């Protein structure tokens, strides 16, 4: 059993204002993601200016926050929020859903694409490899914040989380950091180094995130207000199952050339829409 590294959730103070690690890591991940996308956008096959990336980030942030919150309300605690509707707006009290955030981000990309005459899937291909930066740092923030820990376990690396009681638990936030953050980032970076069919990088993100999240949920303590929701499956797994199915369908469709872009699309040089899988 490993000791819980008792890190103060408050990183430092700016005058009287406490700066929490959670918020700080979210800001760091947003800045890192943006800088990385600006650098990626300079490559000839993408042709994104810095202003365009900053503009897109605005849509992504709004989509992620709004979608994440709506998803949490709908899929994790709807009866409570029906009784306390004003608390839906209190996002600072916690309660965000990745799956809702993903839908919000896709909607954000669609709206941005409509305004800037870019294909939604091409935008998703562009931003998908940056997503694990935020996801990974978010899991580290969960760990520091002593939240979203794992199930009771007696493995040698199990940790007693102060908020989880005296029993040792799986450090599931660390598993998620390694899978949804580090590994997913590396896979997407390596995969997107070569020209791929339009939609393939975004589809691979959806598929792999779904698989990783589904697996890690087996070690994670289910949300207390829900418990298990269908047999041995918790809500994270229920919501990840369609990601695996839809991610596979999107990948297949991308390699069929189903997302090939119009000639006006700036990314056309990177698209090899009608190439066969593995070619």
């Amino acid at each position, binding site marked *: 059993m490993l000791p819980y590294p008792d890190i103060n959730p408050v990183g430092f103070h700016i005058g009287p204002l406490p700066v929490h690690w959670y918020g700080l890591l979210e800001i760091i991940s947003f800045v890192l993601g943006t800088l990385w996308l600006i650098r990626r956008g300079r490559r000839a096959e993408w042709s994104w200016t810095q202003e365009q990336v900053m503009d897109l980030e605005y849509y992504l942030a709004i989509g992620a926050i709004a979608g994440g919150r709506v998803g949490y309300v709908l899929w994790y*605690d*709807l009866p409570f929020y029906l009784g306390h509707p004003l608390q839906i707006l209190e996002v600072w009290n916690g309660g965000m859903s990745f799956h809702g955030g993903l839908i919000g981000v896709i909607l954000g990309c669609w709206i941005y694409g409509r305004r800037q005459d870019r294909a939604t899937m091409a935008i998703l291909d562009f931003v998908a490899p940056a997503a694990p930066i935020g996801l990974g740092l978010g899991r580290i923030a969960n760990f520091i914040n002593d939240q979203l820990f794992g199930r009771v376990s007696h493995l040698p690396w199990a940790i007693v989380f102060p908020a989880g*009681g005296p029993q040792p638990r799986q450090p599931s936030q660390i598993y998620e950091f390694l899978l949804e953050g580090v590994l997913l980032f590396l896979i997407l970076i390596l995969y997107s180094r070569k020209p791929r069919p339009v939609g393939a990088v975004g589809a691979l993100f959806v598929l792999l995130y779904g698989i990783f999240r589904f697996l890690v949920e087996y070690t994670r303590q289910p949300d207390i*207000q829900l*418990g298990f*929701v*269908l047999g041995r499956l918790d809500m994270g797994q229920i919501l990840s199952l369609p990601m695996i199915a839809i991610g596979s369908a999107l990948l297949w469709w991308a390699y*069929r050339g189903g997302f*090939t872009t119009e000639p006006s699309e700036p990314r056309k040089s990177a698209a090899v829409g009608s190439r066969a899988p593995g070619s």
Partner: protein
Amino acid sequence: MTPVSPAAKRRFVRILIAVTILYGLFAAVLAFRVVVRQQVVRRHLELALAHDPRRTFASRRAAEAAGHGLIRQLMATSPRNPCGRGPAFQWAQSKGPKPPACTIVIGVRHRRLLVWAYDTQGHRMDTIFERLNPPPRHLL
């Protein structure tokens, strides 16, 4: 490979959107149903834990008598199992089938009363974690 027609592209996107919306609604309905039932189980568990004397009785028989009395008392206030099968509270059986979902079980170990619970899917709940995080008073 034959190129994908614009009509096929539109159909694919519409199917994806329809599947996502329908699945999202299914998940929302499922979650609503589970949260409402789980809230009742958690309240029942909280009641049982609140009445649990947490002391060692003089004998096993005395502990069992206290446990049966506690079940009668709890059944008088909350008799309904939110999952609809069996009573909300029951005495631990050393033999026989596992208690149905949404049941609070009371038993005796080492002359002490022991309380545990089964969630909406019939899995044993983490009583220690529940003690640390009592349910909200009211959902709706």
